[in-house]
């Protein structure tokens, strides 16, 4: 102690139960979120006839397989079985479930912060890679596999080796119409889809301070697409204001005491990072992905790559395979790419601010292609309806649906058809992610709305006043 520490160091240190000679530490887990996909882990617990160590710190959320229409009916028995299995595990093991018919149901990475379950300084895990989202509150949050989920269920702890520390400072201000999604895509295309591998990432700088809580959640959410072990933003007045009064956050005097502790959760001025990168928000233009990795992002006014201009044969082959899958011609303008549908949703971009941004583009306009809007939580849905956003989406011709992971991963049957092209607010443009042979272009909610209006990838700055 006495040594300058980063934000990550402080949260790490406060969770170490023991550190072995070999460097592995046993960490305490403050919040464990489970979902329908956690069934493999519950089977491991059952196989050992174990009880949950801390059902009070375990929270179930039905999101991956839930229908987004005609609730609570689920036509497909295999999908219904997944949702029912989570309910059965919650009842049997005695943990709180935000189930299909709960007014607080939603996507786990929206529900956690929204309920005040995710707090600064906590260690949060979930069997889902986008758990990095929760780091926006100043938590140490990361995705784990089924064996680790089972270990946390049985012990409320996890063995980890301390990751390296990396900071990305983003100065300057985003241009109007740009959002945290553009920041995230800019980071990923700059450092690569494995650029932050093995590192705990901290975002800092004036462009980060200027982000709303929703924007920070989007940025930390996408950090797994840069390979980061976790991502964090130091809690500040924006964080505290967001958390005050949340249903499961500390209340009254307990909140004041918590906030006093949270104020210490910032990197010391002379703390050292293993890597330190500086970026300029003012240099960023609206970005879209053209290929099959989130690192395949380009400014909307660019052309897709031409493998013939690539010197490295392995890289040229990669580009050609990506172009073939995406059905694009080498060197074509991104703005000439037509889309078949749009999707606004997911743990990345379906919070109230995202829906407002998309609606502000769609107001008074008609969508040229069909599309689905699935709010990040049932609470977000209710709020959007109070603000009249649902009407704007419906009048534009888009479908307004219930909350879940939906078309981001297609597990509930909300799929993009084979060969179809979708402008999407989601996080992964992997082959087959939104459906077998589906083609995904990632972008911000406002950019998806612009693509809906024109039926092609569109620079929303050109659409303004159009």
């Amino acid at each position, binding site marked *: 102690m006495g040594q300058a520490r980063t934000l990550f160091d402080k949260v790490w240190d406060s969770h170490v*139960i*023991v550190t072995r000679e*070999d*460097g*592995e530490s*046993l960490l*305490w887990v403050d*919040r464990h979120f489970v979902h329908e*996909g956690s069934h*493999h882990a519950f*089977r491991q617990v059952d196989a*050992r006839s174990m009880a949950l160590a801390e059902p*009070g710190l375990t929270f179930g959320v039905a999101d991956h*397989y839930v229908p987004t229409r005609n609730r609570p009916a689920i036509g497909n028995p*295999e*999908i219904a079985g*997944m949702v029912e299995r989570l309910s059965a595990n919650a009842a049997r093991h005695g943990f709180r479930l935000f189930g299909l018919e709960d007014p607080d149901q939603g996507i786990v990475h929206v529900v956690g912060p929204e309920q*005040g*379950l995710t707090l600064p300084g*906590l260690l949060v895990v979930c069997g*889902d*890679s986008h758990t990095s989202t929760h780091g926006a509150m100043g938590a140490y949050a990361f*995705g*784990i*596999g*089924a*064996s*680790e989920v089972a*270990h946390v269920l*049985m*012990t*409320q*702890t996890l*063995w980890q*080796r301390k990751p390296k520390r990396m900071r990305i400072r983003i100065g300057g201000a985003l241009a109007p119409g740009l959002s945290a999604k553009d920041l995230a895509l800019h980071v990923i295309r700059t450092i690569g*889809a*494995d650029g932050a*591998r093995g590192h705990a990432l901290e975002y800092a700088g004036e462009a980060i301070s200027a982000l709303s809580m929703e924007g920070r959640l989007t940025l930390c959410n996408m950090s797994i697409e840069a*390979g980061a072990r976790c991502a964090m933003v130091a809690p500040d007045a924006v964080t505290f204001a967001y958390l005050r009064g949340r*249903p*499961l956050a*500390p*209340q009254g005097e*307990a909140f004041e005491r*918590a906030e006093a502790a949270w104020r210490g959760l910032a990197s010391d001025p002379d703390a050292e990072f293993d890597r330190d990168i500086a970026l300029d928000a003012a240099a960023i233009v609206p970005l879209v992905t053209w290929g*099959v*990795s989130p*690192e395949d992002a380009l400014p909307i006014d660019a052309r897709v790559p031409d493998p013939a201009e690539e010197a490295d044969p*392995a890289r040229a082959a*990669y580009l050609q395979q990506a172009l073939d899958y995406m059905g694009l011609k080498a060197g074509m303008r991104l703005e000439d790419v037509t889309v078949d549908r749009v999707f606004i949703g997911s743990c990345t971009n379906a919070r109230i601010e995202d829906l407002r941004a998309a609606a502000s583009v769609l107001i008074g306009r008609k969508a040229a292609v069909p599309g689905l809007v699935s709010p990040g939580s049932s609470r977000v849905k209710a709020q959007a309806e109070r603000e009249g956003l649902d009407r704007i989406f419906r009048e534009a011709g888009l479908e307004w649906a219930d909350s879940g992971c939906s078309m981001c*991963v*297609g*597990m509930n049957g909300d799929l993009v058809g*084979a060969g179809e092209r979708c402008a999407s607010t989601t996080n*992964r443009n*992997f*082959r*087959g*992610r939104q459906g*077998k042979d589906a083609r995904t272009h990632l972008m911000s909610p406002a950019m998806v709305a612009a693509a809906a209006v024109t039926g092609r990838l569109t620079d929303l700055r050109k659409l303004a006043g159009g």
Partner: protein
Amino acid sequence: MERFTRLDALACPLGLANVDTDQLIPARFMSRPRSEGYGRFLLHDLRFGPEGEVLGFALDAPRHAGTTAIVARRNFGTGSSREAAVYALWDFGIRCVIAPSFGDIFASNAVKNGLLPAQVSPDDAESILALLDAAEVPRLVVDLESLRIAAGSRSFPFAIDAVRRLQLLNGWDDLDLTRRHIDEIAAYRARRVAEAPWILPG
């Protein structure tokens, strides 16, 4: 957990970068019980067409029948935390993946199931891919004791976290290790709640 010491493998070169876990096992198969075996779902949409026809992907070539190791380019296992990706590899018969880099969560999941993620330099990955393509029989030997991969007349070093290496060599189970610390866990919990009662959900 099965121990991993040395693997005399038939190896399949996959010259692909960014093989994400959505490709390793598409989401639509993840509601199936493991007891059915996940091997047939491995890289399903690269291997099978709309009618289930075999597309001729490398893994299905007669030359690669009985493959127990695969070699790929950078960022293997990126993306979703789904451990089912490891189940698909394991049930197919794969015991080792060799690549210049791995998704962190994938690498952790792999080790917990006894599958070795062997990290080689990008140049060595290219050499191994080329050697396997050129070899009459695409064979290599992966030795976790010496951290070497032998392919033809050549030998390449590989890296893995020291603790993970020991876990694989010994077939250790995390839970057994954790149970030794049950008293420390209880003491930690009491201390943490006393110091910061607000950590408990309201």
